């Protein structure tokens, strides 16, 4: 696309208005009619192009405009879907602004230098006047376009200079030339358009300071004091050597401004429109940020999946081991029981041994029998312990057969709390703790397996009580008051249950392993290390929720269960079978 400069060939696109004295007087009627038509063309060539529009709709267009833009007839313009079809992309913003102002009744008295597409899609510079008019009882924009004519200040210039002006007008960048005294020597149409300067505002010889003051009064430099700002701009513009700056100008465009010194001490300032490049850069940056966010989310999800998979396969392994151990353990327990019974029967059968044994031997026999009974008791006790571990392990792969049902979450939480508190008080009557309950009534009901979630909650509360008791026994200051905070929060598509205790807390190394099967911080025999592992299974695998933990050692521990409102009903262990 080329910008057509037309200051030196104003008649190029017009019919020849005057054919000189060579045209002989007409000697036929047709000849006189041709002459009248030629005169009409001559008149049309000096009448401005006229376009009336409202919104984007073209309401009227005169023959002068059709001629200026190289169309056959006004009808060819009237069929255009929008008045903005005549406007090049980089000027749309500025034209919309100007039209809107005009439509609101603001009359602007100076001329705008603008460019328009011609019928053949070339670009041409015009001078434009806008005026609000009444069209069919409603306001409309009357747009008048005229050929660009040389400023009166330039008319006296030699022909060479006029050709130079034509050349810089054809350039796609804004150009400003300053002489060695800092006076404006020339500028082009793009410069006028970009800065929204009316043509003729700065005739040649205008001092640069006047231009800078004009900009300041117009508000281009914000609220700074004029002297300061202008001195700075002046310093920038007159600095020797290339200088770059980036600015947003009144036409809504972003410019890359470069100054280059001339050999004679003058200066050439070019203004390159980089709006599109900036927009693309912005879009690219946004796209990049978006992609990075997605990647982060993906990595988080992946991490979570890895943890889930690990937990699932550990759970599977656990259940498998438990299943295999169950039968042999059953025999151990049964035969241990039986051996005790048989021993009793044997002793009864033998009757008093006093008569048959010496006193020493009898004492030794009694001692042996006591040890034997003690051993059998130990086998039975440890067998039962192993049995309870096996049962917990099996619970990983088999649900308690609980049904999915709409459940009042707050009631369930409170019930589990009471249950766990009774259990801990049964063990230790001296234990006491403060409760802070923050139940969100907006939660209402949720479709879950209440037995399983209750199991999770009781387990969490029991752990919390353990941590509170532990800190209480370790506390020497006496200023410690155990507190358990339970909060339920409605988050629209999901709910949260938070259990926070100010007990002994956990170091990072413990937090990392807290959901792993068989991991326990309790002394041997007190915990199976399966409570949280099973809870994780119930919350994450069965209920498709999240289980989060945070803690600061000797300060607090907080467990957060997040359950989705729309979970697909699934039995514990069902996922593994598939």
């Amino acid at each position, binding site marked *: 696309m080329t910008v057509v400069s037309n200051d030196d060939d104003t008649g190029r696109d017009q019919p020849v208005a005057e054919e000189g004295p060579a045209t002989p007087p007409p000697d036929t009627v047709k000849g006189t009619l041709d002459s009248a038509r030629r005169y009409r063309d001559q008149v049309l060539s000096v009448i401005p192009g006229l376009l009336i529009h409202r919104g984007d709709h073209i309401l009227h267009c005169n023959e002068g405009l059709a001629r200026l833009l190289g169309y056959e007839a006004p009808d060819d313009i009237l069929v255009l879907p929008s008045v903005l079809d005549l406007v090049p992309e980089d000027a749309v913003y500025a034209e919309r602004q100007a039209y809107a102002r005009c439509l609101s009744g603001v009359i602007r008295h100076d001329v705008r230098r603008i460019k328009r597409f011609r019928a053949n899609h070339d670009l041409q510079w015009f001078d434009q006047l806008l005026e609000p008019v009444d069209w069919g009882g409603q306001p409309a924009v009357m747009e008048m376009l005229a050929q660009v004519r040389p400023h009166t200040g330039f008319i006296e210039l030699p022909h060479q200079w006029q050709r130079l002006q034509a050349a810089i007008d054809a350039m796609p960048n804004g150009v400003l030339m300053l002489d060695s005294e800092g006076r404006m020597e020339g500028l082009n149409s793009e410069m006028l358009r970009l800065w929204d300067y009316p043509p003729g505002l700065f005739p040649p010889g205008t001092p640069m300071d006047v231009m800078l003051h004009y900009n300041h009064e117009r508000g281009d430099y914000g609220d700074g004091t004029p002297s300061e700002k202008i001195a700075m701009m002046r310093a920038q513009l007159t600095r020797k050597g290339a200088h770059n700056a980036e600015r947003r100008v009144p036409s809504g465009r972003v410019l890359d401004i470069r100054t280059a010194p001339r050999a004679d001490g003058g200066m050439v300032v070019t203004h390159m429109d980089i709006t599109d490049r900036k927009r693309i850069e912005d879009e690219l940056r946004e796209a990049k940020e978006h992609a990075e966010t997605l990647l982060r989310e993906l990595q988080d999800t992946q991490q979570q999946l890895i943890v889930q998979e690990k937990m699932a396969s550990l759970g599977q392994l656990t259940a498998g081991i438990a299943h295999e151990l*169950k*039968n042999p353990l*059953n*025999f151990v*327990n*049964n*035969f241990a029981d*039986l051996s005790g019974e*048989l021993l009793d029967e044997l002793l009864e059968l033998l009757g008093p041994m006093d008569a048959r044994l010496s006193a020493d031997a009898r004492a030794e026999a009694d001692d042996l029998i006591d040890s034997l009974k003690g051993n059998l008791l130990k086998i039975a006790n440890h067998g039962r312990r192993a*049995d309870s571990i096996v*049962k917990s392990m*099996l*619970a990983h792969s*088999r649900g*308690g*057969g609980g049904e999915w049902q709409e459940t009042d979450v707050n009631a369930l939480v409170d019930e589990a709390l009471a249950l766990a508190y009774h259990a801990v008080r049964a063990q230790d009557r001296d234990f006491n703790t403060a409760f802070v309950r923050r139940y969100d009534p907006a939660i209402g009901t949720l479709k879950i397996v209440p037995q399983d979630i209750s199991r999770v909650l009781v387990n969490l509360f029991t752990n919390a009580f353990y941590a509170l008791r532990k800190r209480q026994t370790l506390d020497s200051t006496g200023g410690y008051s155990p507190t358990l905070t339970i909060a339920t929060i409605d988050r629209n598509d999901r709910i949260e249950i938070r259990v926070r205790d100010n007990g002994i807390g956990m170091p990072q190394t413990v937090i990392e392993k807290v959901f792993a099967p068989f991991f326990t911080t309790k002394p041997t025999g007190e915990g199976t290390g399966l409570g949280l592992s099973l809870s994780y299974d119930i919350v994450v695998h069965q209920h498709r929720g999240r289980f989060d933990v945070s803690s600061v050692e000797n300060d607090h521990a907080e467990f957060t269960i997040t359950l989705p409102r729309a979970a697909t009903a699934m039995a514990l262990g069902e996922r593994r079978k598939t």
Partner: protein
Amino acid sequence: MTLGILVVDDEPDVAELFKQRFRAELRNGQVAFHFATSAEQALESLASGLTPETFLVLSDINMPGMSGLDLLQRLRAQSPDVPVIMVTAYGDIENRRRALDIGATDLVTKPVDFVELKKMVNSIIAQTQAA
């Protein structure tokens, strides 16, 4: 009269366990045990005739080869009068339901609680004798 009980389980030590658990009943001749370590073997023994006559069958479900449920199905067809008690794994709801559907007289859960089992056996004896 001595009642014959056929215990079907792939674990051979089950025989020793039952003999010791029911040692009093065995000693006074109330019951006599027959053991089979597979469902196939159980069907063979029943076909060849056992003395004393089998009055009750107690069978595990998970066994290599023919399962306890298959055995139950065959027994229901062959000798519908013989009560069959099935031993199911803890929490195995699916197999419990199927065993009852096929026609198990009763169910006991592993690990077997022998006090419960004895009560069950006694009540079945009482019912059969009353009939």
